[in-house]
C-alpha cells in the first residue's frame, strides 16, 4: 500500500498555485492563455485555436471582494464578485483574453465589468440559447457555433481546421472519460479518493494543460488501487447546487466522517460528465454535447426537467444517504430548482438539507453549518 498518489499532490499544488502554473505554461510554450467565466463556452474551439483555456475563479480574498463591490453590489452573488475581484487584483494579468457564454446574468455582469475595467486583448461572447430542449434551438446551435468559430478565427488571425477541432475534442473527451472513471470509483463502500481530492482533480483540469492533466489522471488510476482502503463514511452525500469552488467545504464535511460521494455542480461532475460525440463535422458534435449534457439550472428550462432524473440516477448509483442542497447567497437561478429537487429527494426517502453559503465571508460561512450538518447526520444514523 502506497503513500498519497503523486497525481493528487500535483493537483493540489496546481489548485493552490494556479496562476504560477499558467504563467509558467505560457512562458514555456509561447502560447496564449484564455480565461473563461462559465463552462458553457466551447473550450475545444479555443484549444484548437492554440489557447490554453482556463476557468476564471476567485480565491476567497477579501481584498478582491472589496474591490469588486465598487462595481457589483453585495446583493449579487459573491461568486461573480470573487471572479471579478481576482481580475481587479491583477492576478490574471497573464491572460490574453476572456470568454463567456450567455450564462447567468450574475456572471455576465462580472464579465461586462471586467472588460470595461481590465485591459483585454480578446473578448469572446458565445451565445447558447437557453431553450436547448426545443427543436429550433437545436437547429440553430451549430449555425451559431460555426459563426462563433469564424469570429475566433478573425480575432486571432488564424484558421482553425476541422482536424484541429477533432484533435481537441479527443483530448477533452479523454480528460472527461478519465475523470468519470475516477468518479466511478467513488461508488465503492470505501471510496479510494475523497470528495476534496476529487474536486481538486476537477479544478486542476480547469487550470491545466489538458494533455498534462490526462497523463496525471492515467497515473492516478494506476495508483489508486494500490491505496489503503479508507474508512467507511458515516454518511454518503450528494452535493447539489451553486458553484462551490471552496475545497474547504468538502474537507469540512469529511471532518465529520461523512463523504460527498457524488456532486452536481459546474466545478464537479457537470464539467466533465458528458463527452462530445464524434461526428464528421466536429461542430455538430460540439453542438450535440451542449444539447445532451447534464444541464445547469439555467439550461434546464423546459417542461419536464432534464436535470432531475440525472440527480435521481446519481442518488441510486452512488447509494446516497442524504442530499445537501447548497445555495450560494443571492444566486437566483439555482433557487428556482431547489423546491423541486427537495421534493424529489423527499419522495425518494432521502433526507435533504438546504444550506446557504457566501464566498464573501472568509471560509464561505461554512463553519456555521456544522450544527445543521451534524443534525442531518444524526437523523440518518437514527433512521429518522
Amino acid at each position, binding site marked *: 500500500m502506497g503513500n498519497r498518489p503523486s497525481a493528487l499532490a500535483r493537483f493540489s499544488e496546481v489548485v493552490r498555485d494556479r496562476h504560477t502554473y499558467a504563467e509558467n505554461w505560457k512562458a514555456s510554450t509561447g502560447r496564449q492563455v484564455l480565461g473563461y467565466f462559465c463552462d458553457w463556452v466551447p473550450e475545444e474551439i479555443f484549444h484548437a485555436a492554440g489557447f490554453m483555456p482556463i476557468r476564471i475563479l476567485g480565491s476567497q480574498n477579501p481584498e478582491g471582494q472589496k474591490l469588486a463591490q465598487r462595481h457589483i453590489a453585495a446583493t449579487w452573488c459573491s461568486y461573480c464578485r470573487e471572479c471579478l475581484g481576482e481580475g481587479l487584483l491583477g492576478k490574471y494579468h497573464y491572460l490574453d483574453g476572456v470568454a463567456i457564454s*450567455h450564462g447567468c446574468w450574475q456572471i455576465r455582469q462580472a464579465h461586462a465589468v471586467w472588460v470595461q475595467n481590465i485591459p483585454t486583448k480578446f473578448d469572446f461572447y458565445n451565445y447558447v*440559447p437557453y431553450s436547448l430542449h*426545443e427543436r429550433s434551438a437545436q437547429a440553430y446551435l451549430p449555425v451559431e457555433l460555426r459563426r462563433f468559430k469564424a469570429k475566433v478565427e478573425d480575432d486571432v488571425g488564424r484558421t482553425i481546421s476541422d482536424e484541429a477541432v477533432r484533435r481537441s475534442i479527443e483530448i477533452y473527451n479523454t480528460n472527461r472519460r478519465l475523470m468519470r472513471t475516477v468518479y466511478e470509483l467513488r461508488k465503492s463502500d470505501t471510496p479510494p479518493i475523497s470528495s476534496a481530492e476529487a474536486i481538486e482533480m476537477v479544478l486542476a483540469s480547469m487550470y491545466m494543460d489538458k494533455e498534462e492533466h490526462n497523463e496525471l489522471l492515467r497515473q492516478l488510476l494506476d495508483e489508486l488501487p494500490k491505496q489503503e482502503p479508507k474508512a467507511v463514511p458515516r454518511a454518503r452525500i450528494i452535493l447539489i447546487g451553486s458553484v462551490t469552488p471552496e475545497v474547504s467545504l468538502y474537507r469540512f464535511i469529511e471532518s465529520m466522517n461523512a463523504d460527498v460521494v457524488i456532486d452536481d455542480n459546474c466545478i464537479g461532475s457537470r464539467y466533465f460528465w458528458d463527452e462530445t460525440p464524434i461526428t464528421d463535422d466536429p461542430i455538430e458534435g460540439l453542438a450535440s454535447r451542449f444539447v445532451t449534457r447534464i444541464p445547469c439550472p*439555467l439550461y434546464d428550462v423546459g417542461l419536464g426537467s432534464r436535470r432531475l432524473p440525472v440527480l435521481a440516477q446519481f442518488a441510486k448509483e452512488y447509494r446516497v444517504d442524504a442530499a445537501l442542497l447548497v445555495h450560494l447567497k443571492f444566486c*437566483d437561478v439555482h433557487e*428556482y430548482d431547489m*423546491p423541486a429537487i427537495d421534493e424529489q429527494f423527499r419522495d425518494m426517502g432521502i433526507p435533504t438539507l438546504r444550506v446557504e453559503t457566501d464566498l464573501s465571508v472568509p471560509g464561505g460561512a461554512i463553519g456555521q453549518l456544522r450544527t445543521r450538518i451534524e443534525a442531518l447526520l444524526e437523523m440518518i444514523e437514527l433512521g429518522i
Partner: protein
Amino acid sequence: MNLNQVNEAKWLDSWPRIKALRSEQVKEMWGANERGDLLIWSSPIPYTSFIAGFGNYSNTGGLGPNYTKVMMNRPLLDECMQKVDEAGYSTNVCGMFRTTLGQILGGVYDTSLVHGKKANIDVFFDFHVCQGQIKSFPLWRKYYPGINYVGVEMPYSYEHVEYFILQLHEAVDSIERATGRRYNDELAIEAFRVEWEVHRYAAMIVELQKNRPAPMNARWLTSLNSCAVARAGAHKPKVLEVYKLVYEEVKDRVAKGIGAIPNERVRLIHEGVSSWYPSAVLRFPNSFGATFVMNGQNACGMGSWVPSDTSSHKVVPTLGELGIKIETRDDLFRAMGDCWLKYMRQVNVLEHYPSKINQVLNAVEEWDIDGVVISRSMECRGLSGMAEELARKLKENGIPAMVYEGSPNTPLEFNQEKYKAQMTVFLEGFGLKPIPDFQPVEPEDYFEF
C-alpha cells in the same frame, strides 16, 4: 440653472382615453371565455401582434388583473407572499414571479376581486425577455396542470434573428396544436402593421421629451405604456388612435411650452423599473422642481429606435420608408425580428450589459439630462445589472448619479421613506429645496393608479 424659472403646467387632456384602454381590457379579459376568445397567460410584454394571428385574444398581463388591488391590501399581500416563502422561493428570484405566484397561492390571481368571476386560461404563452422569465415559466405547470405552455426565447441581439424566426414558426405549430385554431397570416400582418406604428409613435412621444420643459414625465409615460401596450395590446387600432391623440397633444404642449410640472429646474432619468404598483418613486422629485423626463423602460420598452454605433436614439421610420414588404408569414416573422430585436431595445438592455452604459450616456446628452437615478433590486436582476458600474461611469463623465434599493413588484420590500431621504439629499446636491405649497397637476386619484 435658473431657480426662478416657472413654466405653465397642466394635466393630460387625453388621460381619460388612456385610462379607458385599461378598463376596457380588464372587462374584455373577464368576458373572453364566454366570447370564445383565446385567453392567454403572458407577462406584460410589448410584442403583442404575434398572437393576434390566432384571432381575438385577451391576456392576464402576467401580474394579473387584481395585481394593484392585492399590492395595496397589506393583510392580503402578507398572506399571499407568506405562501410564496413557504413554497420555497425567497426574494432572490424574480419579483414578478413571486407576486404572481403569491396571488395564485392566495386564490386571487384569476378570480375577480370585484365580481368573483373566474377566468380560465387557454394557453400559457410568453416571449421570454430574460432569464428570470424563462426559468419561472415552466413552474406555472405545477399550479395550472393540463394547460399548454409555449415560450419563445428573445435573443439578446439581432445577430440571432434567425433563431428567433425559427422559434416563431415552432410556436405557431405548438399553439395550433394546443388550441385547435389556425394561424391567420393576414390578421397577424395587419396587427403587426398597427404595432409597428404604436412603437414608432411611442418613440416620437419620448423624443418630444427632449424639450424644456418636458411636456410629460416618466410616470405618465409609464402609465401610457402600461395601459395601452402591456394591458390593451400594441396591435390594436384603438391603441394606435390613442397614441396618435397623445402625440398630437404632447406636440401642442411643446409648442405652447406646457410642462408636466410648473417648476422644471432639474431633468432626471430613472433607470431600471420604478414600481408596477402605485408608489412615490417617480413623482417625489416634482415637489423640488425636478422631473423624471424618461426612464429606461420608456426609451427601450416602449419605443422603436434606429440603432447606431453611438447608441443614439433616433425614431424608427415607417415600414414603407424602410422598404419592408410583408406579404408572407416569413416576411412577417422577419419584420417582427427587425422590430423587436433591432429597433426595440428592451431585451438588449435586459440581457446584454455592455450595451447598457453607452445607451444611458447617450440618452443623458440627447435629453439634456442633469442627473440619473438608478433602481437596483434583487427582484429584477436584468434591469438592475450594471447599476454600480453605470453610476460610476456617469460620475466619471460629470453626471450626478444615485443608486437606490428599489422593489418594482411588491411594496413589502421597498422602503419608500428611505428612498425619499436619499432622493432629498440627491436633489439638494442640485441646489433644490422642497417648493412650499407645491401642487401637482395630476388628479389625486391618479396616484392610486
